[in-house]
């Protein structure tokens, strides 16, 4: 009878320790999961922001502004025809680095 009690006591202690460990693990894992989830949300929002930014870099208005301001381009009409004359310029090519 006594022996049985001792065995049961040991089993109880073992199981209690195990319970402590398991609940600790559960909390730790839950914490990790929660952090991963909020990271996922953050990344999702970031993704949305980047998508919007990417799009605003490619709108026709922006393309037009860059073409006009940075690249100095103009809309071509038959009125702005430039005739390019072929003239060899050996002097110029020597000066060029």
């Amino acid at each position, binding site marked *: 009878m006594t022996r049985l009690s001792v065995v049961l006591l040991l089993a109880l202690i073992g199981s209690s320790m195990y319970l402590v460990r398991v609940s600790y693990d559960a909390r730790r894992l839950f*914490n990790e999961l*929660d*952090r991963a989830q909020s990271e996922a949300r953050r990344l999702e929002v970031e993704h*949305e*922001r980047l998508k*919007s930014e990417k*799009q605003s870099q490619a*709108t*026709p208005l922006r393309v037009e502004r860059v073409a006009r301001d940075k690249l100095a381009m103009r809309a071509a009409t038959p009125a702005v025809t430039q005739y390019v004359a072929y003239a060899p310029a050996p002097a110029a090519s020597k000066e060029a680095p």
Partner: protein
Amino acid sequence: MKFFGKRSAGNGNASRQAPPTVRSVMYSTSPLLASKTPPWRSKFLVGLVGLGFLVLVGRAGYVQIIGNDFFLKQGEIRYARTLDLAASRGRIIDRNGQLLAVSVPAPSLWAIPKEFQADRSQRQKLARLLGMSVAELAGRLDDSPNYVWLRRQVDEQVARDAMALDIKGLFQTREFRRDYPYREAAAHVVGFTSTEERGQEGIELAFQKELEGHKGTRRVVKNRLGGVVEEFGEGVPPIDGRDIELSIDATYQSLAYQRIRDAVAEHKAKAGSVVMLDAQTGQVLALANYPSYVPGDRRNLTGGQLRNRALTDVFEPGSTMKPFVVSLALETGRVNRNTVIQTAPGRMTIQGATISDSHPHGALTVAEVIQKSSNIGTVKMAMQMQPREMWEIFSQAGFGQRPQINFPGAVTGRLRPYKSWRPIEQATMSYGYGLSTSLFQLARAYTVFAHDGEILPVSLVKKGPGESVAGVRVFSKQTAQTMREMLQMAAGPGGTAPKAQVMGYSVGGKSGTAHKQEGKGYADKKYRSWFVGMAPIDHPRVVVAVMVDEPGDGKYFGGDVAGPVFSDLVQKTLRSMGVAPDLDVRPQIVAQNIPAVEESF
């Protein structure tokens, strides 16, 4: 020590009788122990202990049973936290899924000035990041000792850099801001929100309920480090706002904005608007106004920039009304397209008021009345009709009716009841004076001709491919087709708007020009020019209305000012819709085998 000494002195007598040894001390005979303990004392003690237990049991009972709720709640307060779960506002996207408005994180920086500690270089760096001077920053911090916003809704990178300066007393709060990739091009359609993300204008306002998200909450247990270790209870999941899919096509919208902007600049005009409708479904493909504004930066805005002119500004539709009167005459069999109407000498008098054409035309067929936009010809047809007939057609075409569109600020326009029409008013109304309409209503009215006699319901929200649109019949299919042919003549050689022609596509439309109303009369030198048309003419895909307000460079006819905008827009739009050209494109210079005129020498 003293106590011991006394005791030994007191024992002096006994030690004299018996030699004092340790063994000889008789405890049982100690006089101190001689007195008997009264039995009530132990009972009293037992009673006290028992009472103590009773109190404990009572307390336990109180805590566990009677006051249980209170204590449970108190306990929970000490370990449980309620976290708010932010719900994001829905996006606004165009018909192809391009983003027109989207919420992006934008932290706000705030400070507690009495805790604020930063040295010179930190202050300088912070001021530069926030885009203000050091003095301005100091002024901000002086506002209140407890709490000041330094700058709300900055870019994430700015906030990160500012927090990296590691200044005491500087904090950030997570907030969201609306981002509008198409900026001023789509500003009037999309609208904008307040700092708290509530819709203030445009679609943002009209669909506030749908776009708005609902915050959720969750109950959690947090550990000492602030990490969540457990979740309990039933949280409320956050509900994100619904995405709104517009019928607008961002590409056409940008194109329309660019064209009207360029036209306004070219003609030194005050303002301009464009409305483009899908002629098959009545959906709005583009709705642009100039001047516009950048929705993300609303400092120094004027009412003129904010106004959605296409929907809120009314004007007298002028010549663009003629097709409705002529169609009615065709429909009722009063005329056919070849009936000749004498418009010479270019003026006529009704009740003492004179109506005139800009040029006398002589005898014109009905088709030519539309082509040349003859007031006299139209009036002669209109005077054969009852006012009620005309009124019915006008209101069926949507004039004087509020457009059934979920958008703030759409105006009704003005169409007086037919009972109060005098004959001269009936005459002027037939060529578009004495009633008013917005450009949007006008564009919609022209879906009557574009959609084989049926007026289409308009919508800014994209419809599914399966959803059919039910138009309301105004004219017969035959009449609408005949009128389209006449409109094609008006937008062709010999018409009023040859500049509206499009390379490769047949178009039809009607130009309009009017003196602007000022006070009670008409301003002498201020005009409004517009053009409404459709293409391709056999099976129209788009209806486009263009209006330019106060062109100031001498050209003011609708065909000259608004026509080219129409032409350019229609060409690009139809091509990108994949509509096959229905006209042969003729190169402008043709080397033909024509005998040359002989040179004199």
